[in-house]
């Protein structure tokens, strides 16, 4: 990717064309829409009832009511955010449409922005019903968190986009044989991000690794808010700084992988 291509400007009409493309696809396929809602709903109902059961039988969980359900919702923002990004990208690979796009005036930045917007749209379709179920079944209103929720959301969505950009680059370079990374990468982050337990549970040396991941700060921040009723702005700022580095790095890697794909002819193969 040459400097000229990277800096040739961002045009809204091209970004909106891509959003329209994914929107047409979503509304043309009810299984795609159903899947967006199905898994988050299943997740919140299953784990929410588990939390209800435990909190009735354990004092700590009774006091920490909502942390588990809150963690599930925030984890889904992280996981579904990345999936929403990467699946839209995979649609181009599955449709063998990438060559058409790469040959058009669409720039890589515009392409990535459209994927980010689509990840937000897909996330909204999946997670909003999930939050409503949490209100109905478990009396947990995540919107009651207020402004800190915005900080949590922004940090999680930035991380999900960074990972989405990175895995999309890998698939672009290596073909659909690398598709499984899209579905599994975030699960590698899961134990280290300390979603359901505090960082102190980890072995001391592993805590350094955990603190290198922005989601760790978000989940620690959520527990501080729900259990200690304190909003840790310092944690959110640290997460944001790491996110900025992560985002720039993933974008640079994506461009390097795109260049490599052009060198190895991957864009005219688009297969395994």
């Amino acid at each position, binding site marked *: 990717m*040459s400097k000229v291509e990277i800096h040739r400007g961002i045009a809204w009409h091209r970004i909106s*064309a891509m959003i329209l493309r994914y929107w*047409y696809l979503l509304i043309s396929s009810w299984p795609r829409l159903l899947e967006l809602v199905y898994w988050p709903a299943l997740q919140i109902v299953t784990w929410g009832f588990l939390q209800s059961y435990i909190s009735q039988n354990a004092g700590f969980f009774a006091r920490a009511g909502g942390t588990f359900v809150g963690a599930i919702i925030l984890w889904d923002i992280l996981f579904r955010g990345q999936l929403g990004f990467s699946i839209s990208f995979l649609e181009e690979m599955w*449709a063998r449409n990438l060559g058409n796009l790469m*040959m058009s005036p669409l720039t890589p930045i515009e392409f990535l922005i459209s994927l980010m917007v689509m990840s937000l749209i897909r996330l909204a379709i999946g997670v909003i019903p999930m939050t409503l179920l949490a209100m109905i079944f478990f009396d947990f209103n995540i919107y009651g968190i207020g402004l800190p929720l915005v900080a949590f959301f922004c940090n999680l969505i930035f991380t999900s986009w960074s990972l989405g950009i990175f895995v999309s680059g890998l698939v672009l370079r290596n073909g659909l044989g690398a598709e499984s990374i899209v579905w599994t990468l975030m699960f590698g982050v899961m134990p280290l991000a300390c979603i359901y337990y505090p960082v102190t549970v980890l072995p001391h040396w592993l805590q350094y690794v955990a603190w290198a991941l922005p989601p760790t700060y978000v989940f620690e921040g959520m527990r501080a808010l729900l259990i200690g009723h304190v909003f840790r702005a310092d944690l959110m700022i640290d997460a944001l700084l790491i996110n900025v580095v992560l985002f720039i790095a993933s974008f640079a890697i994506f461009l390097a992988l795109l260049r490599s794909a052009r060198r190895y002819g991957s864009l005219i193969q688009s297969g395994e």
Partner: protein
Amino acid sequence: MKNGTVTPQLPAANPAGSAAIEVAHLVKFYKTTRAVDDVSFRIARGSITGLLGGNGAGKTTTIAMIMGLVLPTSGRIQVLGCSMPEQSAEVLGRMNFESPYVDMPMRLTVRQNLTIFGRLYAVPNLRERIAKLAADLDLGDFLDRANGKLSAGQKTRVALAKALINQPELLLLDEPTASLDPDTADWIRRHLETYRKVHGATILLASHNMLEVERLCDRVIIMKRGRIEDDDTPDRIMARYNRTTIRGCRRSAS
């Protein structure tokens, strides 16, 4: 003219100095395989040129490098006066392509696909443009049908409509009539000829069909094992080789 590095003689009708495509000493290695081997040619604006050769001759890789989808190992490419891929932003909106190696989204209707590509290319009066293409390419009956539900011939016409959506000055076509019945293939060729005449566009098409190239092109570049084997007008190519060779070429191509 058996040397791929020699700039070929262009048909007399094409003015020198107004090249749509200039390729110089183009080389492409895939690992240790030399897919394109020191290829040079210059294509005049307003001409139709055929890249002819069997499978593995290097036609698709050459076209993909001209489009910027594949980076050359070495060599220089200029498209519409701009260096590729460095100045691709200047030219991508003025060119377009069709290839059997890419598809358009199958679940989207023909109209939706054309709308999206029209927007990507910033086509003014897009509705009118789609209506004109639908009329010209006879897409009216299936404009609102999903792309995946079309026959091979219909898909080819839709792919051609996408390739023409921005009224490109330069059209790159990779096997434009592959897997089509003779009537549909002939219909597509007629349409390409008309488009060139009306818009003065340059067309470079890769094919392994000698008949097609003979019928459509002002000039033929024959490629074999990544190198240019011959480069001349179809008539001279036909005259130079005896019938047996041409028949053999047609047979091996098909």
